[in-house]
């Protein structure tokens, strides 16, 4: 007989679960600036990190927070920051630095209504395209969306793993509803978790080329202080990290950044399917909206409608290989979002006349309810 599990059930908020997930993933540095509705992540980590030898710091703004987590990661410590829309806007400059210099780090954006100061305490999903394209220039990035307290924990662990594996910033998009909803969860034990740590160089320091990618395209990463003295810059650089303006070296740099993510698609692209086997109509949703979508689909099934749900966990790189089969199979898909259609345009982009793509959008600061989705489903 299996021993009685010692795991305890806990009543946690989404924001708290993200803090616990970060610790479980090995995060030992957090820098942030207070902002609603993300502040609880800072508060919890300010309490928890020093207990495990980690470091919390409240910086003077979000620009500084992003800079500090990059610095800490370069010194070899897994790092995170958390914010909401206005703060996420401020982070974009240094976020691009982390993309260019390939510094692993995790950025949580708890979405609230926008634009500008917007609706500080209302839910929204208006930052989806900013998460993908907010920093200037072509760049690789990974964006995950959490939908519950439970996956706020597991996807935070996943975000750190992907960030370490691919040396790329990973954005976790939460929203005001997931962040502040309390749910009863049973968090996994540390030994149940698969934790990935960045590859460290195994060659002698003289041989180390900090930006030589190898077959995966992901270079081994030395920490400052490890004896592998090297140069890190946001300028386009050669294999040694020094600035270059040679077209051949520029192209090599750009292509490797993009291809290391392309090669990783199977590890990166995550979705969850429900009732898809025989679905004729389907909802494609993410974040808290996928919870309403699930209720609507179950209601439709009870009414004899062959409805399904494809929940997008990875938003970018857009999980085309999981979405396309659904588009081919169904006569119509419904894409509900708390924005004007930031993911439905991605769905439309890959829908080569396979089926009808119907948008359902709310931008009035209100949650999308199961009833309104059910009403839409029956008309598809």
């Amino acid at each position, binding site marked *: 007989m299996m021993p009685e599990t010692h795991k305890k059930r806990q009543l946690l908020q989404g924001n708290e679960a993200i803090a616990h997930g970060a610790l479980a993933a090995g995060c030992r540095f957090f820098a942030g600036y207070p902002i609603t509705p993300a502040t609880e992540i800072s508060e919890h980590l300010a309490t928890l990190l020093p207990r495990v030898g980690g470091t919390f710091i409240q910086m003077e703004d979000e620009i*500084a927070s992003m800079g500090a987590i990059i610095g800490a990661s370069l010194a070899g410590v897994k790092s995170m920051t958390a914010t909401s829309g206005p703060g996420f806007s401020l982070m974009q400059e240094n976020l691009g630095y982390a993309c260019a210099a390939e510094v692993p780090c995790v950025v949580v954006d708890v979405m609230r209504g926008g634009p500008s100061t917007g609706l500080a305490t209302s839910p929204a999903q208006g930052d989806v395209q900013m998460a993908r394209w907010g920093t200037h220039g072509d760049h690789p990035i990974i964006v995950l969306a959490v939908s519950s307290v439970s996956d706020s924990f597991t996807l935070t662990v996943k975000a750190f793993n992907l960030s370490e594996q691919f040396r790329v910033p990973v954005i976790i998009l939460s929203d005001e509803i997931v962040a502040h909803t309390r749910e009863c969860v049973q968090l996994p034990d540390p030994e149940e978790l698969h934790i990935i740590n960045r590859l460290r160089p195994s060659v002698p320091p003289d041989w180390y080329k900090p930006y030589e990618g190898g077959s995966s395209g992901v270079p081994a990463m030395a920490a400052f*202080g490890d004896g592998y003295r090297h140069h890190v810059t946001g300028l386009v650089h050669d294999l040694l990290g020094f600035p270059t303006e040679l077209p051949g070296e520029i192209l090599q740099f750009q292509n490797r950044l993009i291809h290391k993510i392309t090669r990783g698609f199977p590890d990166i692209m995550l979705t969850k399917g429900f009732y898809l086997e025989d679905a004729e109509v389907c909802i494609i949703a993410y974040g808290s909206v996928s919870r309403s979508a699930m209720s609507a689909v179950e209601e439709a099934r009870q009414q004899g409608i062959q409805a399904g749900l494809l929940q997008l966990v990875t938003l970018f790189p857009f999980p085309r290989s999981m979405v396309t089969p659904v588009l081919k199979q169904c006569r119509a898909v419904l894409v509900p979002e708390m924005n004007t259609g930031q993911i439905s345009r991605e769905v439309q982009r890959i829908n080569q006349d396979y089926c009808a793509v119907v948008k359902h959008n709310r931008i009035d600061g209100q949650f999308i309810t199961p009833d309104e989705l059910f009403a839409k489903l029956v008309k598809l």
Partner: protein
Amino acid sequence: MPVSAQAIRHEYLRHNKKFPHVWCPGCGNGVVMAALLRAIYRMELNKDEVVLASGIGCSGRMPTYLDFNTLHTTHGRALTFATGVKLANPALKVVAIMGDGDATAIGGNHFIHAARRNLNLTAIIINNSIYGMTGGQYSPTTPFGSKSTTSVYGHIEQAFSIAELAVTAGASFVARSTVYHAELLDSLIEQAMGKRGFAVVEVVSNCHVQYGRRNQLGDAVAMLKGFKENAVTVTRAAKLTPEELEGKTTIGVLADRKLPISTEEYEKVRQRAVEGRE
């Protein structure tokens, strides 16, 4: 003990970096770089334990040439990256190299908060009164009335005094030199790097190409002579009236005080957290 320039070059310049550097002939940045290297040499620091962080601009290129852990960050943000590095590994000796626009315009908020926060960091600010790399626009230290490409009719704003700003913001150690006073600069950088707490060295430097040329200050040598003539030591300045100090540059140590250092205070926070004391 005098240190041979050749020994310094061999020890600290990167052999695998594709020189030449980006600085104009006669630029004060080279003087500051050499002073920094001599200080590091005299302090016998292990190169693996030194981190040089910089921002954007002419000064921002300095770490590229030097054989340490080097970090060329975004404009104005060197101190934020340096803060993360230092907190993640307090054993590292972290020095931020910045320019006047870098540290006190776009990075002004980070600068005053770094001073207030008082981590064990060294900040060297090369103040040449202009944005040099972008072609000579006015900066927060461009004097009233001066010409720049964005103040062709004369500058109408007052300039920051960087060292005084650092004193007011709470830095543990603040000093100023010019690139003419090279021996003083060596000593001040060494004192700053040896100081426990946030230490600032402002170095008044020449950009004869962008600033000097537009303000009839002559070439590099003429500008250095100007620095020599205008400099007043802290001791002498104390005896002068504000009128007599007008247009002068005070050099030497402006502040040296013992304050709680947040890197060390955080160790106490960890202790309290482990023991469950709030």
